[in-house]
Structures are given as C-alpha cells and as structure tokens.
C-alpha cells in the first residue's frame, strides 16, 4: 500500500558524508518532499519531510536512517506552539490555511493546535504577536 507520512529527523554532528536522501529515493523507491532543512551552528542537522511510498519500504528506510544515529520523530516538530505563551488572541486564524491552528471552542475562543494538519509553512511564526509559534529550524 502506498502511504505518505511526515517525519522529523535530527542528525548528529558526524553524519554529513552519506547522501541519505539520495539513498531513500534510489534504494527504497520513495518520493521525498522536504519542508524544512537546517544545519545548526553546532553542526547538527534537522529535516522535516514527507515520505511517500510502500509502507514496508518506508519502514525499511527508517531503519536505514536510524542506523546513522539519526533520531526520528513522527510528530512534526517542525513547528510548535508554546501553550504557555499563547494568549488565544486568534490572530493566526486567517493565516493558517490548513487550519492546524483553529478555534477549539466558539464560546471561549480557545485556539487549539493540531500538529497533524500542520504543513510547516511558517506563516504563524511570522504572525504570532506573542512569539508562541516557533520552529526548531528557524
């Protein structure tokens, strides 16, 4: 079965030589869609990507990636909303097209964040007056 999953990969400092993404495409027959990528000043790398392909192939590919000491997270940590900073103003509502940030309750107007809907476009990071939204890749 062909599926698409989103992953957040954190690369340790040492592994910069092997072209991992290339191998994902070539050896595991996957479609890779990279949303965000960054190498920090400490030499660590981050990658937020979609992997599309056979479910079995994705599982094998993840094993291969993990063998380099890469940590894999299925929760999209590309963008996070810090609840302790959010005032539930609702300024993000018209900027988050996929409605990952949305009205949880029309009476209290509490704003909820559904990370499964987030496409890591980054519009909320730029728009949140409280700096509640951020990305590990910024």
């Amino acid at each position: 079965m062909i599926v698409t999953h989103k992953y957040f990969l954190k690369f340790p400092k040492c592994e910069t030589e092997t072209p991992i993404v290339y191998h994902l495409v070539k050896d595991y027959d996957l479609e890779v869609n990279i949303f965000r990528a960054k190498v920090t000043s400490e030499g660590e790398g981050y990658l937020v990507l979609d992997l599309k392909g056979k479910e079995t192939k994705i599982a094998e590919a993840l094993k291969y990636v993990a063998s380099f000491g890469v940590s894999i997270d299925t929760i999209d940590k590309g963008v996070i909303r810090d609840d302790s900073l959010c005032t539930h103003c609702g300024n993000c509502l018209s900027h988050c097209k996929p409605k990952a940030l949305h009205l949880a309750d029309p009476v209290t107007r509490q704003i909820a964040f559904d990370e499964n809907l987030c496409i890591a476009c980054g519009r909320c990071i730029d728009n949140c007056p409280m700096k509640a939204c951020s990305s590990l890749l910024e």
Partner: protein
Amino acid sequence: MKTYNQINEKISSGKAVVLTASEMKEYIEAHGVRKAAKDVDVVTTATFGPMCSSGCFLNFGHSKPKMRITACRLDGVPAYSGIAAVDCYLGATQLRDRDPANSNFPGKFDFGGGYVMEKLVRGEEIELTAYSYGTQDYPLRDLKTKFTIHDLNQAIMVNPRNCYQNYNVATNCSDKRLYTYMGQLEPKMGNLTYCSAGELSPLLNDPLYETIGVGSVVWLAGARGHVFSEGTQHCPTCERTDNDVPAEGAGTLALTADMKKMRPEFVRGCSFVGYGVSLALGIGIPIPVLNERIAKHLGVRDKDIRAQVIDYSTDYPLRTGNVLGTVTYEQLKSEVIEFKGKKITVSSMSSRYKALEICQLLKDDILKGNFLLSQPLSPLPKEQGMKQLTIRK
C-alpha cells in the same frame, strides 16, 4: 435604585450578587432587565489585547555617590529621563537604540519597552545603564548595574490610553501584503482583523459612562488600580446605534496601578512584524448595577455592536475618512464572513479567552470581599469630538 455604599456594604458582608458580563447577558435574556437590575449588584467586564499607549514610571533610589540621570537604558531600551534625578518613564513601543527596525523590511521587532515591562512584572533581572552630565550635588556620571522590580521604590504603570470603547476592522484592498499594528493584511481583502472584546468590553457595557469615570476602580493586570483621566483621543461624540452603542472608536480611559502587584500573564510584550513592539494588557472593570438603565446597557450582545471596516492600504494611512462598510462582532466571530460579495477569513488581535478569564478572576476577588467599588470623583466627558493635526507651512 442602589447606591455605591449599599453595594460596598453587601460586598464587605459577603452578600453581593456578582455576575460576569456573559452571565449577566444570559440572566437578562432569561429574566428580563427589571429583575436583573433588582437581583444583581455588580457585573464584571474585561478586555485583553495590545495597548500601545502604555508605560510606567520607575524610581531607582539613589546610588552612592548620587547621580542625576540624564539618559538611561533598561536592557538597552531608552526610558525618558527628563524628570527628577532617579525617575524615568518607559514606554511600551520604545525600541533599543540600534534596533534595525524596518531598515530591512519587514522588520522583526523582537524586543522593546513592552518586553521590559513584562520582565519587570515577572521579577526578572534587568540591566540599567545610565549617563549624567554631572553636577556638584550629583557627581556620578556613568552607571551600569542590574535590578529587579523588588529593588525599586516605585514601579507605577501609567497608561494614557487603554480600553478603546470600540475599534475599526482592518482589511487590505491593494494587491500586496501589508504589515500593520492590526497584524498582516493579505492582498485583495484576503483577511479581516479586529481588536475588541466586543460584548465583554468595559466601555461597551457602560456606553454613556454612567459608572466608569475618573476615580473608578479597575483591575489592571491583577492589581487594583484606577481611572485617572479620560484617555487620550476620548471622543464620545460619534455615531451610535441602538442601546447607545458607539459604531466607531469613541471613548477611552487613562489607567494607573502598582506594577509590583500585577500578574505577569496579563502584562505581555508583543511584536508585529513590519510594524513594531507593544504591550498586551489585561483589564477588568466592575460595573455596579445601580438602576435599570445601567442593567439594560449590560445586556448588549455582539450582534448589536457594529464596527467599521477600513482599507489599510489607502484610506487608513491617508486619512480619507472612507469606510468600506460595517459588520457586527457576531459576524466577525463566525470564522468566515461575507463582505462585499466575498468570503473572508477573520483574525482577532484581542483575546476573548483571556477576557473571560479576567471577568471570572475579578468576580472572585469581589466575592471574597477584597475588591470594593469606588464612586467616580468626576464623570468622563460625554460630548467631545476629536481634533486632527494640520501640517502648517
């Protein structure tokens, strides 16, 4: 008819009936204005949102040797020092000296006066640098130290304009994105943004300023404070719809309270990409239900309150006075609004969630008997327009 004294006696003896603004509206809808006026003593109203006309007076105490501070910086943010030796006024929108601002448009604006005010209330350490020209009685010329709010003699918030009675709704008719204090406005009326607590808002529940006046007690970020004057740009003479509700900006309040008693979650530095920094503030105002007229005003609903939609690409900056149309807060709170034949998504700068929380916190304070009301010393002006600046050659 009730008096302030009667209500305060009831509060002190734990017998007062206190409702939040939303509870009062439901009560009126269920039992009518007459019964509500008889049964309810106090209604708590509130708002939470960015309020640029805010700031604070700080007094550092004297150094040894003494210094007559000519200019100072708090975490790099200049505070006005053209008053006595160790007093200063820090404004919410002040940037650091070398902030790149909009030189690389749109600027990020990641720090400024509002953030320093939040740090103060959090009790965090702030760096003070100061310079003086030096005098015989105040010889010290340079100073660099650290302090927290606990080291200060006074930290008094003094805000020339808060609690706008109503506010306009922003949109953008041009074909490029705008960066404004009402947030980012997407091209071709891509979104609408508003900034009012609507039916919870203090001055929309007392539209003719019958209970809120100079000397009225307020809940300012958790501290007991006061209205010390009409706010700047207070303009009560305006178009009003049914139930005396203003259809535009109208009244404002100048507020003050002791920052040492404030709660940090209601004093928040905030930032608008491409515009600047500000301070988001939580304010609650208790309204005594003195008579039926006041009760009737407290029944106002979002569907009764209209706001003007303004084009921020031309009409707002050029002050043309043109209004695209009006919408109600009920419409604004539905996620998508139909305006000029277009479906438009809406953003808010004001937090109803926080305003509801403040209504409840203030209600609890009053029920505990430790928040008495005060009769205004003098009323706010009820007739007054707004002047504009003419640039003379």
